[in-house]
């Protein structure tokens, strides 16, 4: 199974600022995804990040607010821009091993916006 790491693990930020979350996979993967999880809630997909193409965003999420980069097959970043307290959440990246369609998750980044 793929091993996924995220940085930072948590952060406290001021409103109006931006935070970039990094996601590193220990093997090459085609599909990477970014999810948001409110404490005690389920996971909501933000966007799909494919190498060599623009990210595909789900309804309710826009590129200006959540720009994503995917420079290679093992790395992706998600930026949360112009943050407000409503952006306080856990942000998770995942990667899919296409051979088995198995999707593995990183440990998450816990973001608090004051």
């Amino acid at each position, binding site marked *: *199974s793929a091993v996924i790491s995220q940085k930072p693990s948590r952060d406290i930020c001021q409103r109006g600022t931006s935070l970039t979350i990094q996601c590193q996979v220990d093997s090459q993967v085609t*599909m990477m995804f970014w999810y948001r999880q409110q404490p005690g809630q*389920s996971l909501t997909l933000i966007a799909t990040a494919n190498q060599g193409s623009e990210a595909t965003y789900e309804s309710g999420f826009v590129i200006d607010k959540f720009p994503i980069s995917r420079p290679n097959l093992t790395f992706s970043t998600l930026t949360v821009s112009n943050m407000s307290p409503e952006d306080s959440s856990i942000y*998770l990246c995942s990667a899919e091993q296409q051979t088995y*369609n*198995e999707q593995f998750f990183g*440990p*998450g980044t816990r973001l608090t916006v004051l």
Partner: protein
Amino acid sequence: QQQVKQSPQSLIVQKGGISIINCAYENTAFDYFPWYQQFPGKGPALLIAIRPDVSEKKEGRFTISFNKSAKQFSLHIMDSQPGDSATYFCAATDAGGTSYGKLTFGQGTILTVHP
């Protein structure tokens, strides 16, 4: 049509008992159904998954039962242990279709196993 409905919201089981969590879906294009286990402060961990060409899959104490006609699937945890106490999420996707692996998650079930 993209929803996955999960029940119960919370479940309390005695050690050694059977934990059963149910999920129902509407999108008949879904063809891959994983279950994830999540401990507090951790990311979800893939537990077991099933495809609709089989009705049951077992891995250790964990079994998925799948009913394609009813569009339902369930997770059974046999001989439940206190270490199984976690939040469980069912999910679904049309892995070979236009969703390109995007997972739709159920609402989650908080399982507590008492010693």
